[in-house]
């Protein structure tokens, strides 16, 4: 029943034994103790579990771990080097876009994908892209401000880096 698969997460390859029915989110959180991605609903509605798989945002509560073997997975822990913050993270901190914070890993991962695709988004484009991420604390105003501020900072640099 169990299969040994290689999960490649944040640049590290983890051999891990899983049952075919195990969700990617559970394996990452409970077998690898990478707990940045959160479970808010289990049905793909809240976005707290969002990870990038081969650069695309997906709700990992709806993914089976076996189907992601060998693919490039990024969680919030992989957005910046240890001890550093990327522009998005820094803007979220400085503008207090974070309250309870349980939705924030999902927002940051999804917003990273947005800024890679569209480095200069309008407010409307930010709201459209992030509509799958629910936040109950902030009313979203400061989250939008933080994404716009991060985009401004990235674009203001002479040689733009990716977020």
């Amino acid at each position, binding site marked *: 029943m169990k299969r040994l698969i290689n999960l490649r997460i944040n640049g590290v390859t983890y051999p891990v034994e899983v049952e075919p029915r195990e969700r990617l989110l559970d394996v990452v959180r409970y077998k690898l103790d990478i707990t940045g991605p959160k479970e808010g609903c289990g049905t793909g*509605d*809240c976005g707290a579990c969002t990870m990038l798989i081969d650069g695309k945002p997906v709700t990992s509560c709806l993914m089976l771990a076996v189907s992601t073997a060998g693919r490039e997975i990024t969680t919030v822990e992989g957005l910046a080097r240890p001890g550093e913050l990327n522009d998005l993270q820094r803007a979220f901190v400085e503008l207090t876009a974070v309250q309870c914070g349980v939705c924030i890993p999902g927002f940051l991962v999804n917003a990273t994908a947005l800024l890679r695709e569209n480095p200069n988004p309008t407010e409307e484009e930010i709201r459209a892209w992030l509509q799958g991420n629910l936040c109950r604390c902030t009313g979203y105003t400061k989250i939008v401000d933080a994404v716009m501020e991060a985009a401004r900072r990235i674009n203001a640099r002479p040689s733009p880096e990716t977020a």
Partner: protein
Amino acid sequence: MAEFAVIGKPVPRVDAVDKVTGAARYAADVNLPGQLWAGFVHSPHPHARIKRIDTSKAECIPGVVKILTQDALGAGATQETIDTVHGMRLSQSLFAVEVVRYQGEKIAAVCAISPEICKDAVEAIEVEYERLPAVDEVEQAIRPEAPVIREDAKEVEAPTGCPWANLGMFRNVCQEAHFSAGDVEAGFAEADVIVEGIYRIPRVHQTYIEPHACVARVDPSGKVTVWTSTQSIFAIRSGVASSLGIPQSNINVVGQTIGGGFGGKFGVLVHPYAVLLAQVTGRPVKIVYSREEEMLDGRPAPGAVIWVKTGIKRDGTVTARQAVGLWDCGHVPGASIYATGRIVGVYNFKNIKYDAYGIYTNKPGTSAYRAPGAPQGSYASEANLNQCAAAIGMDPIALRLQNMAQDGDQRVIDRKPLSRVAFKETLLAAAKQAGWFEREKKPNHGWGVAIGEWHHGAGPGSAVVTLMDDGTLKVFSGAMDITGTDTGMGQIAAEVVGVPWENVRVIRGDTDSAPYATGSGGSVVLFSMGNAVKRAAENLREKMLALAAQHLETTVDSLEAVRAADESGRVIPRVQRRGQPEESVTLQELAQIALRTTGGPLVGTGTFASEPSHPLISAQIVEVEVDPETGVMEIKRLVGALDVGRAINPYEVEGQMQGGATQGLSWGWMEEMQFGQGRMLNTHLSDYRIPTIQDLPAIESVYLEVPSEHGPFGVKGIGEPPIVPTPAALHLAIHDATGAWVNDLPATPERIWRALHRNRDEGKG
């Protein structure tokens, strides 16, 4: 206004970096070696007799460690849960005994080596039920033919004059509250116009994004440790102790980072089960609720049906108000029914009468949700007041200003004089920001306004502030941080002691290590814990200055604190002889000197329990556009104003205002726990809708600072009020846009469309 160095500055939250990197550990992120997973069999029926429970198949599944039912505990065994933080007491068995009274009630608990096996075992347990008639609406539950939900339900006489008076008696009553001032009958006789309506407010779930979770471990010595997500570690400690008969001193509760609570994470819910299973298995046990379990077996906000009648003169004088409230308690008492009294509001109304009833239904019990009871009560009151303004052709803001109380006026409810209130100023600030008096009437656009008051309390707490030998300031308490209060407490301590913000560390202890702290709710934390921290910081400062005087061979009176930056721009706080910088000592030096004195380290302690507070209001204005063909509504603008006393951190204040207004808007617009024959119909976030980032405009917030007499630096409690007025403001905006009053919440496109067509059919459209 005094100049502050740290207070009033938008410093980042102390927990923000951990939260944006994924490092913050929430309760479900705690994994202990050897832990087991526990799950529950919940009743699929809202009301049924349990005929048989068969666990034999589940017991055979490899990996299943333990199954608990009420029979295994001893039939009829009831546990009394006591929450000493809130003085609440609830007698309830851990599992349903013979009868289930709501869908979701726990029948059995399973413990297994993995979450998947745990789910398999839950599904393999067979329960046979005999279904009983169920009732899920209060207006049905009070009727003579309704099933009696509990033996202790009372039958009471229906108040006269209300829409349900013809029933004679109300059935299934579990709570009552009554109030009367002046003479409402005489008041109604004086009125030019009578405006009455029934306002139905649905049951909603707090919908924190993090469902309940906990991990419990029991050491061979009997020592219990619980890691959990809670608004009060001390309430969890007393709840676990009382429900399982364990001495409180044998329990340590560790509060993890909390993923939202809003009132729904105070007392025990899953915790006693994890502890009990850890006791009987000897291994750590973890429970994580699913979203569906939250919806079926959480403790949401009560719905209410409130009838309001107001007598008003054409000049705007309100002559009398009366209300009857029916509150949906679910299967146990506990709803904030006294909030029916919000028909008084912050107005000088003289003739008032209300009767409020808590009604049993076949639903889970309820708990607090941000300003418990206030959004329901204030919606009925403020929506009715807006209808009064429309009935006499008066501007709704002008009507409020004419009737609002101010400093010196006596409150109707308790005859106490008001002080340091800013009701009129707050309402006018919202009007100014929104441009209310200059607004233009556009087709299908509407504007609405409402206010919501909150009178925060206080709670006992204590804090320890230490000046460390590296010059940093450590603030230590047992208060859970849900709204940024750790940051606020740190700012208060930094201001008092005189250290730069960068040098402050705020540490939260567990129930074993931390001094007692009140629960984080009721908008009490920064008022109460802020006072405890301020007193601790002042205590520390006193010791520090005494030591400095001794060191500089002078008196405390001749010392001054200096925060000047050095050449590199670093602030090195020090104390000097007034006007003589050459005779100075840095705070870091003082902390080190203290270690070599007879007195020892520089530690300040502070305690606080209660001081009077002042009521305040949130005033909101909302602009909407409604498509008359579909009833679909777009929120164009949402403006809020609030009297905050003192904004310790403006970003945090704005965050509370924006988040609260969004929850209020959601209650008025899209949220509703829907039931059919006692079963909940929308148990997932796909059909239980809360606003997405695309549903909302940027929310505008303006705040006033009328300092509280007793709050630290003038702080008033502000977390709750912003949720209160939004539904009533929305109610008026919809009317302004369409001509229709949609009294039943939420104002879904269907309800708006139906109200419009009802108006047209009646020739009013």
